[in-house]
Structure formats: C-alpha cells, structure tokens
C-alpha cells in the first residue's frame, strides 16, 4: 500500500511513537514572533531551561509593528513593550532576530519562504495559525499555541496526534480574473469553516499544479479557515525553481542531494486518503465573503442567502452575522459602497500580488470615498516593489505603499478599520472585530480588492477585463 505525501514527511520526523500516546515529532524550524512568544520564554526561565536548538529558531516582529515610519520608536506603549521583550528574549536565548530595521524583517509566513528557510519535506511550526502557508512547498507546517511554543523551544519537538488525510482536487481552467484566493474562498464556502477539522489537506489537480508558488501559498495559508490542521502541495519543478538560490537554501552538493530527496515527495498512486473532494475550476467565480466567518462566501455576482435557507438551529447565528455586517437577506453585494481596501497579510502581500495590483491600477485612481492601504509582506517585498517602480504606480493611484507587517489583518497596531465601516480585504479572516472593533470585512482577492478601490464599491473584476484583456 502506497503512502501519502503527508505520511512520508511525518514518518521521516517521528522521534518516538507509543501506542495510545501522541507521536513525538521533530521540528526542523520554529518561527517565533512578538505576540505568542513572551509567555513561552517566561516558562523556560521558570523551568531553568535553555532554548534547545536556538539555530533552528527564527524570530521576527510582525503582528504588532507600525506600518508607517518604522524607523521611529513605536508609539503605542504595549506594542513597543512586546517588541522590546522579543529583542531581549532573543538576545538572552541566542536566537537570530529579524526585527524592525533588519532587511529580512516581515510577516513570518512571508519571510520563511522568501529566505529559503521553508523547503520541501520539512516540518515547521509557529505560534500563529497561518503557519499552514509553508505547506505550499510540500512540507508539514501548522500553527501551535504558546504552551507548544514553549515545548518546541525546550525540546525542538512537538507532541502530536497524526491527523486524518484529505485530498482536495481542483481540475480545469480558471476563468479570467479568478485566482488562487478565489479558489480557496470557493473551497471553504463549499465545505464550511469547519469542513476540514481534524485533517491534513493535500491540494492536487491540474489547476493547483498550474499555480505559482505564491498562489500555492495563498491556498495553503487559508487551510486553517476550513479548520484543517495543515495544508500541503507536492513539490515539483515550480517549487524547486522557487527555492533555488535563496539566502538559506542548500548550495552545491547539498542542493543536489536535497533535490533528489524532494523528488520522492508525492502521494503514491495507491495511497489511501480518509476523504477525497473534487472541484471544477470552471465553476469558480471571483469570490467575496459576506459574513463573519470565511466559510460565508459567494461568487461576487450572487446574492446573500436567505435566513430561511438554513436549518432552524442555525438561523440565530446567521441573523446575528448579517446584522453585524449590516446586510439583509438576498442582498447583492455587487455595487455596495465600501470605505476601505486593505491589500496585505500573509495571504496576499507577496511581490506577485503587488505586481498584479499595480498592473491593474496603472493609469487609474481610487474612488474618493475609499481609503486604501497596501502593506507589503516583508522588507524584501517592499524593496523589490520600489526597485520595480510599483510604489510610484501605487502613489499615482492613491494606494500608498506602507511598510511591512500584519497591519489591518488583525488590527493590533494602529491600522484599524473604524466601527461600522466596510473593508474589502485580501486577508484571511472576517470575524467580528477582526480588523478593529465593529469593523466589517469582505474577504476577496487582490484584483477584486483593487477593482473595488477604483470604483468605490464591490466590483466584479471581470467587468474590467472585458474592456481590456488583462491577467
């Protein structure tokens, strides 16, 4: 009987396996950031333990940092305190920190891949649920809680129950204007925000294969939004070409050895999955969410469902969500005026996202009623964008390019969407208050967000593409 990709990687990292007990899984790289690490460092101090493998621990400041004037001291006292704590803790425990001002600083799930730290066949964890992003390389990567952060710091291992395996296939040709973000929002809308709970999800099929690494990261990033433990995609030439030559990628003989191993990483034809789902690329429209969990998504031309279409016991929660969003039964989002557009987050803040948006907005200008924030995922993305002159295109369009960080994805810094305002956002969560107290989020792709910024209302990107062949 063949093995799944997931099982191959898992088995290669099991330190110890005992009946009735979770496996002890070896972690290749542990990413840490300022928000979920301080209590873990405290725990180590209380136990009198060092960080077991500081060289396999990588730190950055992202969740809480300002995205404007990063060279100045952080104004918000608590944010400054958390960032200072991280600096102090990393120095004390011998961990490399890509903090503010460092050329490698950025959102943890953007910098791991771009530095060549994330590689096929590896195991990666971080105290942040979107760690699933790194699975795009054909790796096992998932978010952990702070107690587990402490556990990995103390032992470079994690106690884990092997999850079940699910395969999600997408085959066929995407419509113009539909991209990776639409695919994953569509899948989550089909199977619900809990549809993947307990599973490691492997994405497969020719549509997935045709995506760039950045598109694959967008897909794996949102695995957690369907409740999955992690998401992964088998490595191929696209993956290998992406990793090659990056800062920390293996070099010379090491590289050849690594590539030979990576080529063995795929699910065997007769591998058994606990669940298999398939979707057709042709069915996917540009997507947008209307509710308060990422499963509440529709094609941009569709109408919000009627309360009566839900089972009686779900109607209360549904009504509450619509009320929060200021929407009503059967409303069409298309044409609804919006107030903010946020292009950023570990889902969509990489250079390809920025290029795509810049190409689209070139020669256009945002609507007066909309405030636009473009927040690059990392210092390197920001620099690259400037080298390519994208910042000038953005400026001319009224889309100022800010500095890297999580920003309005979770509104921990000052980038908050005000109460009651609508934001078309390329991030990954539309929970109540996620982007600021009482803010209202419509999740969408970078293209849909950019088009909506130009018109000032929720827009079907395909309308623009009819005029001009683009993308």
């Amino acid at each position, binding site marked *: 009987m063949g093995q799944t990709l997931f099982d191959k990687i898992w088995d290669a990292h099991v330190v110890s396996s005992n009946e009735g007990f979770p496996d*002890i899984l070896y972690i290749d790289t542990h990413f840490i950031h300022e928000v979920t690490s301080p209590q873990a460092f405290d*725990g180590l101090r209380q136990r009198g333990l060092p960080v077991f493998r500081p060289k396999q621990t990588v730190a950055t400041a992202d969740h809480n940092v300002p995205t404007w004037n990063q060279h100045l001291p952080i104004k918000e006292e608590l944010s400054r305190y958390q960032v200072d704590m991280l600096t102090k803790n990393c120095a004390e425990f011998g961990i490399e920190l890509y903090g503010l001002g460092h050329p490698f600083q950025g959102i943890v799930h953007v910098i791991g891949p771009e530095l060549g730290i994330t590689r096929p066949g590896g195991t990666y964890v971080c105290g942040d649920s979107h760690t699933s992003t790194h699975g795009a390389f054909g790796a096992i990567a998932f978010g952990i809680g702070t107690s*587990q952060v*402490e556990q990995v710091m103390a032992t470079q291992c994690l106690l884990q129950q092997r999850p079940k395996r699910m395969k999600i296939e997408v085959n066929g040709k995407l419509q113009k204007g539909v991209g990776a973000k639409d695919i994953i929002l569509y899948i989550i809308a089909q199977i619900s925000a809990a549809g993947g709970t307990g599973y490691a999800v492997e994405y497969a099929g020719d549509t997935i294969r045709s995506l760039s690494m950045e598109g694959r990261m967008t897909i794996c990033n949102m695995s957690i939004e369907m*409740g999955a433990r992690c998401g992964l995609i088998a490595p191929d030439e696209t993956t290998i070409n992406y990793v090659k030559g990056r800062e920390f990628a293996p070099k010379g003989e090491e590289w050849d050895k690594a590539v030979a191993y990576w080529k063995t990483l795929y699910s065997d034809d007769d591998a058994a999955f606990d669940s298999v789902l398939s979707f057709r690329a042709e069915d996917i429209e540009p997507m947008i969410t209307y509710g308060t969990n990422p499963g509440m998504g529709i094609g941009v031309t569709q109408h919000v469902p009627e309360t009566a279409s839900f089972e009686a016991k779900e109607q209360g929660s549904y009504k509450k969500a619509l009320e929060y969003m200021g929407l009503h039964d059967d409303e069409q989002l298309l044409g609804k005026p919006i107030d903010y557009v946020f292009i950023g987050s570990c889902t969509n803040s990489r250079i390809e996202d920025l290029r795509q948006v810049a190409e689209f907005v070139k020669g256009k200008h945002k609507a007066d009623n909309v405030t636009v924030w473009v927040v690059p995922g990392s210092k390197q993305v920001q620099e690259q964008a400037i080298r390519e002159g994208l910042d000038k295109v953005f400026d001319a369009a009224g889309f100022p390019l800010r500095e890297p960080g999580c920003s309005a994805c979770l509104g921990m810094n000052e980038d908050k969407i005000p109460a009651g305002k609508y934001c078309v956002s390329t991030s990954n969560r539309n929970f109540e208050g996620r982007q600021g107290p009482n803010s209202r989020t419509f999740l969408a792709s970078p293209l849909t967000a950019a088009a909506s910024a130009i018109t000032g209302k929720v827009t079907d990107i395909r309308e623009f593409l009819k005029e001009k062949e683009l993308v």
Partner: protein
Amino acid sequence: MATKIFKHIQTSVVPLPIENIDTDQIIPARFLKATTREGFGNNLFRDWRFDGNDNPKADFVLNNPNFGGKILVAGKNFGCGSSREHAAWARADYGFDAVVSSFFADIFKGNALNNGLLPVQVSEDFLKKIFDAVFADEHAVIEIDLVDQFIKIVATGEQESFEVNPYKKACMTNGYDDIDYILSKKELITEFETSK
C-alpha cells in the same frame, strides 16, 4: 512543571448557546499585548460583555448574576479561528475548569488541554438537554468526571460519556505536562538528530 490536578467537578454552569464562537470573540486581538499569562479573564468575551464605553451589557450572560459556575456550555464549533492560547488562558483566568460543546475547533482543544481546561464534547442532543436544564433552572448542576469520562445533569441523572485522549487524561489527572514527558526522552531526540 506541575500543573493543576483535575479529576472531577460538580457545579452550576454558564450557558452560551451561540454557534461558531471564534477566538476573536473569546479574546479580541487588541488584548493580546500582555506578556504574562494572567489577567486575561477581565477581557474574556470583552466586546459582548461591555459596550464601547466599558459599561457591562446587561443582556450578556456573564453579566447576569443568576448564572455562574466552573463550566461554560457553548454552541457548536467553539473556539474556531486563531491559535491564540490567550483564549484558553482568558477562560481559565476567569475561573472556568471545563467547556462543554457539541464540537470544538482543533487548535483550541489542544490549547485548552495544555492549560488544565477540559473540553468536553457531547452530542447535539445532550447539549440541548443541558441548555434546557439550565434555562429551566439557572442553578442546575452538572457533574463532569474525567476519571470515568462521563458528564451528567445531576437533577435528572441523564448522562453521556465523552472521549478524551488517554495521554492528556493521564497528564490532567496526574498534574504533569508535555515538556516533562518529552524531556524524559531527550536521548531519543539527539539520536534522531545524528541519524538525519
């Protein structure tokens, strides 16, 4: 490091019959800035409990003096969303020892168990029975026994068994944690590293 020993509790409960309660409701992100594990209880369900001027909202259950106890009972898919363990600390800090729901999000369940907070997953039916019992009598008492793995509505004697990972059960009933366990296997880790 020794953690709290949990074997059995019997208490009144706090009902929250809402589905898909996500971690941003349990503890909004703006309260994640603390660097210790204490004090999060005050901000548990912050935006449901308090209005924009920090005044308690009278209609929210935690502000209703008639309800109280060590067990939180919530609707399906509790704890979905982020990996923030603060959600588990907030509830433990507030004084809950167990959460009952008909379905838990994955990461949340793990975080809860790691913090001496027992997630008890019951059937939809039994969950409804608990809500009915509590709304009929605010002081209705629920018993949770981790050793024999059952949950019981004391007044009616109705009970249901629940699943718990045998390893986590051993940890909670003995008061030891994951790091103690892994460190007892340290040689295996270094052996693994050299064999790679």
